[in-house]
């Protein structure tokens, strides 16, 4: 999550009060789809690697529109992942079906905007300041 993400991590996730789920959207297909699949395959080796890959892609989003297939494999290697296992996953039916299913499910939930957020059942559309998340989280905490 860009913007407020770091503050939410430090304030609420690190303390165990909030769990963040990243739900990949692939509305434009192409590299949007490949990036989601690549992160998913990093996660198949280690869930922590999913977030390392996720954070890398967020930090390098300007490169992604012109990234080729090698870019995603090289990123996996640079993060210390097993290249063969990553490649096998990247081209597998299972990973592609999972990414497609997740995208279909978010559409069934009525999620169209990028990004959108579901904070304890409250939907937010578009980028949000930390204060918007904080208000909902504080109200939802026991």
């Amino acid at each position, binding site marked *: *999550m860009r913007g407020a993400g*770091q503050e939410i*991590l430090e304030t609420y*996730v*690190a303390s*165990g*009060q*909030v*769990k*963040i*789920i*990243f*739900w*990949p*959207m*692939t*509305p*434009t297909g192409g*590299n*949007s789809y490949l*990036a*989601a699949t690549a*992160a*998913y395959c990093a*996660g198949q080796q280690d*869930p*922590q690697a*999913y*977030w*390392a890959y*996720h*954070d890398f*892609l967020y930090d390098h*989003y300007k*490169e*992604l*529109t012109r990234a080729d297939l090698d*870019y995603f494999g*090289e*990123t996996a*290697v*640079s993060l210390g992942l097993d290249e063969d296992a990553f490649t096998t996953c990247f081209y597998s039916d299972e990973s592609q079906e*999972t990414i497609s*299913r*997740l995208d279909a*499910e*978010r559409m069934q939930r009525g*999620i169209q*905007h*990028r*990004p*959108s*957020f*579901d*904070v*304890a059942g409250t939907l937010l559309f578009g980028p949000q300041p930390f204060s918007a998340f904080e208000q909902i*989280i504080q109200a*939802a*905490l*026991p």
Partner: protein
Amino acid sequence: MRPITITLLTTLLLAACAPGAVQPPPKAAATAVIPAEATAVPSPITPTAQPTGAPTPTPTPAAIIPAGQNPDGAFYRGDPHAPVTLIEYSDFL
């Protein structure tokens, strides 16, 4: 340096044997062998460009935060039993 040192020591020994000679302090030869690099000041590190594929260190405490995968295939980070769940729907582009 070595021939000069030997010559200097020989001169000093001969001078010491001469009657009425004043013995110079022997430390003159020792101070001449201090390596120059011992006093060198390290140059400041110049930042270099990261290779395109190299990971950029992130300040996130991701390494100490639990992470996992839900049965539906999506990944989470944080305590799996955290009282509040935040779902981010987005792509990477």
